[in-house]
Each structure stands twice: as C-alpha cells, then as structure tokens.
C-alpha cells in the first residue's frame, strides 16, 4: 500500500472515531436530566393536584440524588403543560403538540375526551404517557387492540369500569345499611351523572345491575357537567322517592349537587363519585352542606401501603388540601423513575419494556399493569392486594373518613370507619 493510501485509511479511521466520540458525547449531554411533562388543566383543582403530586415526587427524587443512569445520577425536571382540557379538547391537543419535544415522558390528563386526543399525538411521537386523570376504558382498550401503536400509554388510576364496580360494591353496602337502619325492603336508587363520556358506562352498569341487587332504579338524570343549579333535578329525584342518589360527576356540577342536596335535606344518601368532592375546598365551596356525601377517590387517610399516611400528611401539611385522585401523578413519576433506572436509557421502547415489569407499592396502592394481550393492556390491576381505590365520606370541615373497602374481600385499611347515613335522612324516613 502506498503512503498516500495509508494516510487516507488513517484519516477515515480518525474521522470515524471522531464522529462516534462526538455522537457519544452528544448522547451523554442529552441525558443530563429526565424531563417529565405534566399535562393537565392547571387552573383547575384537579390540574393543581396533579402538579402537586408530581412536584412532591420530583423534589423527593432529586433530594435523594436524582435518577440513576449507569453510574451517575441525573436530575428529574418537570415541565408544566396547561391543557385547558376541561374547556376545550383542541386546546389540549395544541398544548401537547407545542410541548411534545420539551419532555421525554408525560404524566397527567383529566378529561377522557381530551386524553384520547392527546394520546394520539403522544403515541405518534413515541412518548410514554401515563394517565393519572383520564379514566375511560377506551384509553387502554386501544393498547389492547393496537399494541404496537399505543404501547407507550399506561394508566396508574383505575378505569371508569372499575370505578363503577367499586361504586357498586359501596352501593350494596349502603343499600344494606338503608334496609337495616330504616327498615326499607327495596331501596330506590336515582342516578345523577354528568353528560360526559366517562360516566356513560357507569350509568349503563347501574341501570343494568341495580335491579339484580334488589334495588329499584327510579331514573337517571344527566345534567351538564358545568350546571350550577340542580334544584330541579333534586326535586324530581325526591318526588321519585329515591333513598340513594348514585352520582357520577366530574365537573362543577358536583359542588352544586353537594351543596343543594344538603341545603334541601334530600332524604337520600348521596354516594358514588364526585371529583370535586375529593379536595378540602369542597367543604367550603358547598358551605358545609356537602357533609355526609361520599365519593370515591384514589387515596385516603388510611394505611393502604406504608407510604400512604406519610404522603397524605406531607401533602396536607404543605398544600393545606387533600390529595385529589389526579395526585396519583406522584406514583406515576416514581414508576417512571424506576423504569428509566432499570432500562438505563431514556429510549421509549426500552422504558416501555421495563414499565411493563412494574410491581410498585405506591402511596395510592400497589401498581401492576395488565400485560400485552389483555383487554385493557397497561391499565393498573384492580383487586384485593392490588389497587382498590377508596370511598371517603365527609364528616366535618377538615375531616374525611374512608368508608370503603370495609370488609370487602377481607380488606379494611387501618383507620377506616363505617358509612353513616345523613342524620336528616334517618330523621325523615324513620318517622314513616
């Protein structure tokens, strides 16, 4: 080989080494931090609670050194993405489109309608998206049906089908109490659900299953999620003779309902799910009239795991509020952190593989995801010993008690109390 040939070969080798060194350097520089986008309606209570949950996790993780990558630890950063999704689905999609490259992973969402639209954008960009708010089963059904496209989606909270199931189990408990304490043989149930997609399967399930539970359904009322007056609905429900109002509301109507139910002393137990009823401001917003209402949520002041009470206490102390169901972003951030550490990279496909192996005892319960092939792949597993959620009952200004699970499949979390019928209901119906 000529000298010229050698020089050329050495030059090419040096160029190749230099390029690969630069690329490696660039790669190292790119993972100076893990960026997690928190997507939600940040001006609303649920959005605020979502951010608070993620913020607490971020601060704790960074205080402990950060996220382990190889031998080093890198910081975890949060990117706030205000989606305004309770008002506009298109606002939500635009917000995610604008921020899709500003974060490596995403957690959050509130409205299922918006979550479905945002899911499309994030899946297209192969970004892991963990829902801590959107609850419609379709979000995970999509993963089941088209795994390759939607595998980047996970959910750390129960879907609305399971939410419905829990509400049913509690409905059975309350119906039993109504029968025992008031001597009513066949309690009547009225459904009051806002006209949003997530509530549809719940309404259908109550209408179908309540009669099998020895209950009579007197009707289903579907006000707007933003209604500020439900006195006409409540008057009609009272007229129908309902003993139990099964609510499934996620908008401001939840405040109007809690308030006017108490003001009018409607002789019916108000149970079910009310997303505005899970935070401390509910009491003041209803002027205290919401006392005795129950609602389901993802966490309560009981020992679900060893992490629950410390998380609850720190949250209340720091924000002077109760964690909402969207605060499960706290667990979502921790799960991401662990999956990224196990994967040793921020590559979405590799992190997905590790996410699927998750078995994490979080503040909100044990998190294991349904596997590929399941109808709701990547949804959090429901059941005794897994994730159960809780149902809380308002007792006083700063006090909620966990009233479910209360003996269901042997589960009663330490600190739970028995459900209590509203005193005015007992007073009015016992006379008869």
């Amino acid at each position, binding site marked *: 080989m000529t000298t010229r040939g050698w020089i050329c070969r050495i030059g090419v080798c040096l160029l190749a080494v230099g390029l690969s060194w630069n690329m490696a350097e660039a790669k190292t520089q790119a993972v100076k931090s893990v960026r997690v986008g928190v997507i939600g309606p940040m001006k609303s209570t649920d959005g605020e609670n979502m951010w608070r949950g993620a913020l607490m996790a971020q601060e704790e993780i960074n205080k402990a050194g950060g996220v382990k990558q190889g031998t080093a630890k890198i910081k975890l950063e949060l990117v706030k993405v205000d989606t305004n999704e309770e008002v506009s689905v298109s606002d939500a999609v635009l917000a995610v489109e604008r921020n899709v490259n500003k974060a490596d992973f995403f957690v959050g969402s509130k409205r299922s309608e918006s979550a479905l639209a945002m899911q499309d954008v994030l899946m297209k960009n192969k970004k892991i998206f963990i829902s801590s708010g959107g609850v419609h089963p379709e979000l995970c059904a999509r993963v089941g049906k088209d795994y390759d496209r939607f595998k980047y989606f996970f959910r750390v909270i129960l879907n609305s089908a399971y939410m419905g199931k829990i509400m049913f189990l509690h409905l059975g408990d309350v119906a039993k109490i109504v029968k025992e304490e008031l001597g009513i043989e066949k309690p009547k149930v009225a459904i009051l659900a806002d006209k949003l997609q997530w509530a549809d399967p719940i309404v259908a399930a109550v209408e179908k299953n309540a009669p099998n539970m020895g209950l009579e359904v007197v009707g289903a009322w579907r006000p707007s999620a933003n209604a500020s007056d439900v006195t006409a609905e409540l008057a009609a429900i009272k*007229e129908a003779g309902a003993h139990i109002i099964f609510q499934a509301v996620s908008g401001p109507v939840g405040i109007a309902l809690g308030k006017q139910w108490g003001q009018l002393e409607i002789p019916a137990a108000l149970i079910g799910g009310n997303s505005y009823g899970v935070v401390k401001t509910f009491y*003041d917003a209803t002027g205290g009239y919401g006392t005795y209402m129950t609602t389901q949520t993802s966490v309560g002041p009981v020992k679900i795991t060893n992490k629950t009470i410390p998380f609850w206490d720190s949250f209340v102390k720091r924000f002077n509020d109760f964690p909402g169901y969207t605060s499960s972003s706290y667990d979502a951030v921790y799960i991401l952190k662990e999956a990224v550490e196990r994967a040793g990279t921020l590559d979405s496909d590799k992190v997905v593989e590790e996410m699927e192996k998750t078995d994490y005892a979080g503040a909100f319960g044990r998190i294991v995801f349904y596997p590929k092939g399941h109808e709701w792949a990547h949804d959090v597993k429901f059941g005794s010993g897994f994730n159960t959620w809780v149902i809380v009952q308002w007792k006083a200004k700063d006090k909620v008690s966990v009233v479910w699970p209360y003996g269901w499949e042997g589960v009663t979390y330490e600190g739970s109390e028995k459900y209590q019928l509203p005193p005015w209901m007992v007073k009015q119906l016992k006379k008869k």
Partner: protein
Amino acid sequence: MQVLISGIVIGTVYAVLALGFSLIWGAARIINLAYTSFYMLAAYFFYIFTSLLGIPMVVGVPLSVFVAALLGVSTYKFCLERIRAHDTVVMLISVLIAFFFEEIVLAVFGQQLFSVPPFVEGYRELFGVRVLKQYFLAFGFSVALLVGLWIFLSRFRIGIAIRATSQDKEVVNLMGISEKKVSLIAIILGIGFVTVSSVVVSPIYVVEPSMWMHPIIMILAIVVLGGLGSLKGSVIAAYILGFSEVIVVNWLPMGAFIKSAIALLVMVIVLLVKPEGMFGVVFEEERL
C-alpha cells in the same frame, strides 16, 4: 306541582335578569353582552366582602352591589357610550369586556369554586315540594323589583322619559329631554337589577368565573322570544323558558343536560311563527 313551583321560581329569577337587559336595550339601544359579567362580579364581591374579609352581610351585600354596579356603569360610560351608535361594535366590545372580567377573576382566584352564605337557611315545603328559603327570598325580591319597575316606568317622570326614549329618541331630544342622561339612568337601573339579583341568587348557586355565560344565553333567548325591548314580553318569555327547563328535567331526565338547548328550541319555534317575538314591534308603538 313540582314542575309548577320550580318553573315559577326559576322563571321569576330569569325575568328580573331579562328586564334589566331589556331596559338597557330599550333606552340606550345597546346589546350589552357584558351585562351578566356584573352578575358574576357582584357574586365575587359578595364572597370577598363577607367570606374573606368577614364584613357583616348587612354591609357586605349592599357594598357588593354598589362596587359591581359602579364597575358596570363605568364600563358603559368609558367604553360603550361613545360607540353605542355602532351595534355590532358594541356587541363585540361587550363580549370582550365580559371575557376580560372573567380572565381577571381567573387570574386572582383560579378555577376554584366558592360558596356565599344564604340570607336565610333551610327550606320550606310547598305542596310537597321542597323550596329553599333563599329561593323564596329571591322570588320575593324579584317580584318587588318587577312591581317597583312597573310603577317607576308608569308613574314617575324619569320612568316615563325612559319609555319615551325607548320609543323615539329624536322626538325625546326635540322635547328637551336629554336622551343621553335618560340612557345612563336606564343603564344604572339595568345594572342595578343584575347585581341585586346576583347577591340574592348566588347563595343558591356556585360562584365561579364562567357563571355569567349561562344567564346571558338565557337572557338573549328571553328578550328575543319576548320581543326585543318589550318588558311585558321579557317577563312572559322568562316564565316560558323557565318552565321549559323544568319540564325537560322532570320528563326527560336523561336529557337534563340539554335543558337550556330545549329552551332555546322553544325560542326558535316561536320565532318561526312570529319573527318579531311574542310582543315585539315591527313599527314603533307603545311597548309597556
């Protein structure tokens, strides 16, 4: 019976809100879409003064009405008066004003929902139907306002001047009456109506930034249905739409979320039959 009582109560509240709007349209000839934003502001001032600052209700309530009304009248004086000859511009600017106030409230309070204390606690049963005492109070207030307005417009010189202005501005000017002053008085009265109604009904509802939207939609439907500018038409239309809402909730519970849409449908049907509204005037004539 439940439909009857709920319909009367809701219809009366709508009537008062619509009357103020009609009055403003009649005398000042402006469609002020920011009208119900003062309803929202009065509720927030009520919350600030009584719940946050702890001012007794006897002082806090009139103060809330005064401050919100002052803002409403100032908005007219400084923003709308100079452009009131341009209908479309007035509508656009007034919508912007409404959103401006909503954004201000959002910036200060966020999307948090609040409650203000009722003047009277509890409820009464009327023919087996539970009605909040606060609703009775709102009903009483509304009736008093309606009767008061009727007397004012028929017996007092300023009231008669307002009616005259709503019929023919040019003749009023020729008669030596300041149409500008009369319009301002009508604005003060109209804004007064909406702010007073707000403090009376807000203890029943929830105080939130977008609470002005539903009322303005209903008011527009009412005044169009009743006949723009017709006070009598507004009152009757308010009851029609109030009853429509209650009937939907009772007879079509699964469709309760479309109660306002059904009310608007009633408006469309009436307008198809009578385009000028029930008591609207095609030519200038007596409106009261």
